[in-house]
């Protein structure tokens, strides 16, 4: 009966062939480490955020007079409301942890290089959508941090030359962040995840076209590829189990860890809290904003600090495969960059002033210098590695990649 049903469907819809092509026959490098687990985890978190968000929306009220109390109502009176809300708030932080690790893996192993540029760029769009969604969602509890975070970020658009004030007024729908702002942020916070789902589909279609990169950085022989299902479904699910142990630890034992205490005070448009900080996942970019004394310059630098990742396929000019693993100088640079981002995040969490400001400026310079020196460093490093002698197999591979090109052009 089941077989007849599947046969009936297969005549009308490519069900069996789709599962075969994309899962049971989809070849995946057998040497993928657990660093390749984080894309799957991001997909899981997207589902968790959408599901928990839909259930929160059933009880939440996007109105300046009701919003804060409706969140308290969810916490105290809705059955398991506390759990759903803590899943959603912890899930947002976990989403950024997972996505940042996913990006760091891509940078470390050089997975952004040809032919995976479109994967990297669609991922970049996903990051920006995720940031937009997280930013708008953070306003909804209508606490002091929510309010002043939104006030500051919408003010950033005021740096636009000539029409800055009009743009800010249009974004807020009011002279300050108000009821109109809260309502539209709620509507858009509900909308953006659908764009994210669409972009994830594009991301996955591109992935299944170019296939996964792997730690070696070269395309493996057929015998070194294994089907995604059951091998990597099992591996991904095991990783999910480990992730959930940590995640549930936060949800059940430290749910307020990622929530600023000041956000338990209802929003007050006449009083800024003495020390406002954005959510931790925005801290490095916030420091870059503050490091530039000019408003427009700061906004441009902050925007560039996110967008500059898109240039990685062009900035990295080395053809040595395998990313940082086989490239000692790129590896050193990767770790310096990671430390630098951590310093930026720390500075962003501190009140403005004196020494931390100077550290922030220095870390901002290093941040951009890392990207801008990469074209020269990567070229020089490749020559250095070749001069020291590459493994014969790798040398042969690089020669075979470079030689056919002129011949093809001559033809």
């Amino acid at each position: 009966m089941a077989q007849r049903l599947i046969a009936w469907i297969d005549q009308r819809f490519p069900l069996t062939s789709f599962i075969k092509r994309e899962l049971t026959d989809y070849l995946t490098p057998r040497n993928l480490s657990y660093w390749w687990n984080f894309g799957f985890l991001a997909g899981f978190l997207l589902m968790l955020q959408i599901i928990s968000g839909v259930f929160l929306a059933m009880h939440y009220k996007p109105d300046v007079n009701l919003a804060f109390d409706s969140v308290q109502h969810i916490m105290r009176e809705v059955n398991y409301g506390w759990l759903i809300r803590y899943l959603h708030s912890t899930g947002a932080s976990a989403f950024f942890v997972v996505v940042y690790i996913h990006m760091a893996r891509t940078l470390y192993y050089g997975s952004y290089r040809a032919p995976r540029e479109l994967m990297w760029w669609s991922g970049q769009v996903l990051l920006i959508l995720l940031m937009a969604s997280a930013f708008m969602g953070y306003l909804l509890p209508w606490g002091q941090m929510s309010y002043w975070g939104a006030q500051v970020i919408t003010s950033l658009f005021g740096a636009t030359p000539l029409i800055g004030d009009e743009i800010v007024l249009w974004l807020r729908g009011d002279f300050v962040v108000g009821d109109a702002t809260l309502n539209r942020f709620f509507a858009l916070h509900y909308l953006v995840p659908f764009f994210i789902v669409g972009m994830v589909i594009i991301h996955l279609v591109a992935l299944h076209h170019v296939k996964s990169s792997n730690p070696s950085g070269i395309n493996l022989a057929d015998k070194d590829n294994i089907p995604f299902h059951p091998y990597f479904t099992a591996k991904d699910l095991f990783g999910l189990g480990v992730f959930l142990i940590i995640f549930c630890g936060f949800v059940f034992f430290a749910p307020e860890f990622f929530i600023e205490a000041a956000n338990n005070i209802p929003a007050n448009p006449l009083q800024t809290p003495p020390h406002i900080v954005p959510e931790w996942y925005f801290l490095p970019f916030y420091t870059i904003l503050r490091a530039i004394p000019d408003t427009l310059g700061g906004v441009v630098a902050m925007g560039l600090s996110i967008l500059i990742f898109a240039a990685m396929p062009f900035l990295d000019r080395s053809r040595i495969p395998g990313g940082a693993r086989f490239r000692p100088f790129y590896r050193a640079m990767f770790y310096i960059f990671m430390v630098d981002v951590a310093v930026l995040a720390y500075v962003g969490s501190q009140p403005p002033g004196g020494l931390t400001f100077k550290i922030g400026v220095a870390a901002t310079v290093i941040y951009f210098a890392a990207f801008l020196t990469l074209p020269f460093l990567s070229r020089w490093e490749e020559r250095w590695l070749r001069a020291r002698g590459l493994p014969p197999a790798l040398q042969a591979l690089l020669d075979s990649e470079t030689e056919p090109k002129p011949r093809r052009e001559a033809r």
Partner: protein
Amino acid sequence: MAEDEGVDEKRRDFLLTVTGTVGVAGIAAACWPFISSMNPTLDVQTQSNTEVDLSGVAAGATRTVAWRGKPVFVVHRTPQQIAAMAQSAGGKDPAPDQARVQEPQWLVVVGICTHLGCVPNKTEEGWLCPCHGSVFDNSGRVLQGPAPRNLEVPPYHFAATDKIVIG
């Protein structure tokens, strides 16, 4: 085949361009109501005036009132503060103190930092913005920090000696 011979390529290109242009313009026009709907609504725009009774504000004290939802600082300045402000020209955005007040003892400024919209906190010397450290004097002029301009002076007038109307 026979059809191709009679094709006037220039005419076809022209029609294509015109159709495309009209189509794009039509889509843009159709977007306008939606974009415009996000601007402040009529009821928000009409919250224009705020009356402030000055009689209860002691010398040296500040009253914060809401005007169009924005905080407005009404400061009753002491003679020492007035004298100090009259001598200073301000910092990054120089302006004489007399140009920023109607009565020297009453300073009225919008309490929104011109950098990124936080509300500065009152200090002895003026204000300090908690967000990014901009410092303002007792005339609302920016002395240091990232704020590009002085605190805005809203339109207001004295309805009586102890009452102002902002807006």
